[in-house]
């Protein structure tokens, strides 16, 4: 039984469709991510669920209730904004208590204190937003949304303004709190790594449409089209005609082939005991080597096109720039698009 249902939602601005007939469903307690490039419509969809944007066509249901025409305050959703939107005139306690005060909730103090404890902000109750770090402000924004016990939590790129280290630790914390409260969460990001780390399910969006949905593993290992392949995993996407020529075969079908950079292997030209069973072999030379921490990325130029090959950074296993190499392409890892 789906808990959140988006039914054929369409929205446009100035004759341009921002959301194009989007339908999706979420289960209760699920952590879903809307992933896509800037301008793909992911934030508009989130704001439509929150009631901050009207939809032109379609319905939005939460827990079986049609909320399409309800005002934001009636929807029982919580939202954390990209810039947190904390109230500058209120301290941490008052920011978190704001929604409860509006609802005239009793025992407000204990609820707020519990939430402050949960987001690890004890001792900061009297501080004002400008006295907090970005990470602390993000926690206040999260606590402010969660204390209302919303049916759905909406997160609009809440980690994008933070530095890498704090971002990683908050990703874990966010996931922990989400699991602890079993709250259905919709997270918006353009960062595929963040989406993979946090989500139970990912909806990849492009030009106002959901182009693929599935678990992080499904999305990563089985992209349905070139856009997803390139956006999700830095896939090597090669024209099929060119690829057939490179591997000297006529069997392959499709328009393009996508191959993950980490499944490719490099060996020196002339190296013995090559096991070509199950692999194709393409000759080339190392055009460039770059290092991204624990990963070494080789750009290997072949007769027809360039391939990226990712290696874990082991000491003493580097190919020099200009080295002549052979790329081993595992046949079963090639995805025909």
């Amino acid at each position, binding site marked *: 039984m789906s808990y959140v249902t988006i039914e054929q939602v369409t929205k446009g601005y100035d004759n341009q469709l921002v959301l194009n007939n989007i339908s999706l469903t979420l289960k209760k307690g699920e952590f879903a991510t809307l992933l896509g490039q800037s301008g793909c419509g992911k934030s508009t969809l989130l704001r439509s669920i929150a009631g901050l944007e009207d939809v032109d066509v379609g319905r939005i249901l939460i827990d079986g209730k049609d909320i399409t025409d309800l005002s934001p*305050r009636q929807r029982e959703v919580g*939202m954390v904004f990209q810039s947190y939107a904390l*109230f*500058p005139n209120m*301290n941490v306690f008052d920011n978190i208590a*704001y929604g409860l005060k*509006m609802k005239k909730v009793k025992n407000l103090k204990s609820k707020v204190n519990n939430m402050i404890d949960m987001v690890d902000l004890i001792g900061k109750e009297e501080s004002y937003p400008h006295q*907090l*770090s970005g990470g602390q402000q993000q926690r206040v924004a999260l606590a402010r*949304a969660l204390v209302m016990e919303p049916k759905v939590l909406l997160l609009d790129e809440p980690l994008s303004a933070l530095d890498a280290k704090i971002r990683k630790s908050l990703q874990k914390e966010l996931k922990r709190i989400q699991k602890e409260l079993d709250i259905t969460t919709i997270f918006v990001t353009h960062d595929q790594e963040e989406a993979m780390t946090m989500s139970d399910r990912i909806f990849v969006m492009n030009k106002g449409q959901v182009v693929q949905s599935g678990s992080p593993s499904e999305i990563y290992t089985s992209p349905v089209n070139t856009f997803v392949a390139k956006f999700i995993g830095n896939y090597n996407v090669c024209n099929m005609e060119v690829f057939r020529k490179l591997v000297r075969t006529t069997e392959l079908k499709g328009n393009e082939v996508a191959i993950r950079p980490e499944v490719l292997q490099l060996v020196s030209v002339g190296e013995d005991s090559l096991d070509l069973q199950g692999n194709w072999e393409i000759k080339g030379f190392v055009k460039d080597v770059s290092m991204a921490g624990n990963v070494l990325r080789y750009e290997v130029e072949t007769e027809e096109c360039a391939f990226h090959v990712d290696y874990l950074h082991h000491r003493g296993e580097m190919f020099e720039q200009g080295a002549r190499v052979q790329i081993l392409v595992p046949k079963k890892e090639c995805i025909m698009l």
Partner: protein
Amino acid sequence: MKSSLTFHKLFVGLLVIYLLIPLVGTLLFSIAGKWDHTILPESYTLKWYIELFQDERFYDAFRRTLFLIVISVGLSVVIMLPTIFIITVYFSKWEGLLQAAAMLPYGVPPIVGAVGLIKLYSAGPIQIAGTPWILIGAYFITILPFMYQGIRNSLRTLNAVQLVDAAELLGATKFQAFRTVVFPNIISGILVSTLLSVSLLFSEFAFANLLVGGRFETLQIYLSDKLNSSGHLTSAIVITYYSMILLLTGTVLKLTFRNKRNPVGSK
């Protein structure tokens, strides 16, 4: 580094002296007994102030000016604050139009404006020419640019749109969002606009003279009248209303920021 700082200090010092000299000169002249051929007055006296404070006309003019200012500025805040808020947050595409309308007073010289207003309001259904009401209307328009810029800039700096969104999602109505979140954060902007408007209207002469003149004597008209009788007395008037404005500004600022809680903890 040190020399550049000295230069800055010197520059600011010169600017302060430049701005203060006319005021100090006026103050000295208002308390000068005999001052003909010396750098500083030869004798000092408070007789100009005594004469001023014994004149009923001065108090009446002051009261009238205060009445005009309170009504005009109050009306402007009551009308412009919600208008600017609604346009900025909900109808941002109309912002350009509002901005153009707010800047219009700069394009119309007071004399042209006054002649037009007298013509328009001396006949027809609204005959208010020569009454203080026409002056209140003219003052409302005069201070429009200050009110508009001050309030709009405060709303922009605050990112009011997102704060209202956040408050609404937390269960607030639009009015509650404005009252509890937006208003407390733009109060200093409103205050600055209000004080600028008050200072401007205190020294406004053109509209007051052309639209109502002696029929509703304001402080500036009183000052202009006294200019012909004694320079010492007019200096005393100027210093008095400067002091009034200073007192008013100081009190409002103190009252506004008195309840602001002290920062707690550090970053």
